[in-house]
């Protein structure tokens, strides 16, 4: 590249990156730095407390309980969503009449905001007389305490998050399936591979890139999710839906304890990095 051309990459990068640095990266770093500070309300003003906030967080049973909830939630919701999305993509990839209509219907929840999703599902999951219980009673299943029992509430959050989340990931898988050259599948079939073998040894390996993307993006999206908890269960009952992100929100925005809230956010960020790292290594190793 000639002299002037050397700056070309930066010209292309500048507008977007400058905005991201100013409005995303800087606030993130500022928040992380806040985790080293405390607001000494008694002495007044903001003071450096080193790792004091981390110490508090790591010795806080509520934090550890919410880590457990988050761990359980992540394992369940991500597994369910990825498997369902892949299954739905295979179904939506069927060559039958009217399939585009079905694909359009499947995409609808993408357009519904998480707040609206939460409100509508919250009403449908009402334990006393919600629509879902109404439908269960038709088939003879007794009423379920969806949002009010510690055994059920997390599952209810998973259900609504899945309704909202799966369609987007289905779209990615569907695209991946359509990108698989037909000749490869044909060749496998001629070699005598059954349908399961075709899926297991041809389709799935060829979807690895999409699978990795969906897995990582879905994991991150679910780590960040707390609106349904905020609007429906407030972390309860008995802390059974108290996700770390919700606890972080509550410490920062309700209790006004920014130091502790930021320390939680930092720890959570480390955890997300670790989980994504593991996902990458596991899926890349298969190459």
């Amino acid at each position: 590249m000639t002299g002037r051309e050397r700056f070309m990459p930066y010209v292309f990068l500048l507008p977007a990156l400058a905005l991201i640095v100013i409005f995303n990266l800087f606030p993130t770093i500022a928040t992380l730095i806040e985790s080293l500070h405390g607001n000494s309300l008694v002495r007044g003003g903001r003071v450096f407390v080193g790792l004091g906030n981390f110490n508090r967080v790591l010795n806080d049973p509520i934090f550890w309980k919410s880590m457990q909830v988050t761990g359980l939630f992540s394992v369940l919701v991500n597994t369910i969503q990825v498997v369902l999305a892949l299954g739905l993509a295979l179904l939506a990839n069927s060559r039958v009449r009217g399939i585009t209509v079905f694909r359009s219907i499947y995409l609808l929840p993408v357009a519904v905001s998480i707040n609206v999703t939460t409100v509508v599902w919250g009403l449908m999951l009402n334990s006393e007389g919600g629509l879902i219980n109404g439908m269960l009673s038709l088939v003879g299943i007794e009423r379920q305490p969806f949002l009010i029992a510690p055994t059920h509430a997390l599952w209810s959050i998973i259900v609504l998050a899945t309704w909202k989340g799966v369609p987007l990931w289905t779209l990615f898988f569907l695209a991946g399936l359509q990108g698989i050259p037909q000749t490869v599948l044909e060749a496998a079939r001629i070699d005598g591979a059954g349908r399961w073998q075709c899926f297991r040894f041809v389709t799935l390996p060829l979807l690895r890139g999409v699978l990795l993307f969906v897995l990582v993006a879905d994991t991150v999206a679910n780590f960040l999710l707390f609106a349904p908890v905020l609007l429906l269960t407030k972390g309860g009952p008995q802390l059974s839906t108290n996700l770390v992100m919700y606890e972080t929100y509550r410490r920062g925005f309700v209790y006004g304890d920014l130091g502790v809230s930021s320390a939680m956010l930092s720890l959570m960020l480390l955890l997300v990095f670790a989980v994504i790292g593991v996902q990458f290594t596991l899926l890349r190793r298969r190459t």
Partner: protein
Amino acid sequence: MGAKTGRAISAAQPLQGLKLPSHVWRHTGERLLIYVLLVLVALMALLPLMWAFAASFTPNARVFDYAFPFSLRALFPVEFTLEAYDAIFARGFGDALKNSFWLSGVTVVLGGTINALAGFAFARFEFRGKRILFLTVILLPFLVPVDLTAIPRFILVNSLDWRNTWQALIVPGLGNSLAIFLFRQFFEEIPQDLIDAARVDGASWLRLFFNVVLPLSRPVLITAALFLFLQQWDAYFWPLLVAPRPELRLVQVAISTAVEEHRTRWNEQLAGSMLAAIVPILLLLPFQRYYIQAVTSSGLKD
């Protein structure tokens, strides 16, 4: 131009996955099973929307009447009424729709452009610090919930004196990591020949980008536009912080006005919710094949 280049893309990435050999589905029983599954899934996707839609045309006191025990009447308005819609429009929901539409539209145009530029740089240029920039500037923000870093962002916007202005809503939402990532994946797959040819003809990089690359990129442009649009359309927490003035009220905030201190007007909340959902649905569905193309033509598949 668009049509021609569109074909160029499908030639590079054949889209023939739809044509499964006939023997695969030769049993009608199997076909029936597929339809049953398709319909079941469709019902699950539709049920909440149908109920909410019906309830939004129902008087508030009767919203839950047919939910338990379930009757199909729950999915059709009992005592059809427009009172919920009248009420929310009387409180300025129409203006909120207009505001959100304008905000999302501007974000799509500006954000689409700058994120595409950045995505192109990551896909096509070699430069110092590329990897570290990608990790810190693209990946890191993707991992952090924006709402939880709102306080420093708020202080920043406040010190710029942007409170209650459009730019406070628009500018922080322009740079979008996910959009850059999608663009990068897509641009990496554009044949080098096309770019070389334009360069030999003496086109500058910017001209090449706007005249050669973008016209080839309709699927990813539409997909990124969708993400940018939804991001602003669904915004709730940030607008409430930086632009609470009634003239700047946005859709999701307007929906929440049905919630009062001691009660909620459910039919009004659902009416607002349905209107908020319909706009993206109308924008989303017609472009479905482009989203699939954008992903198919990206480097994600391998």
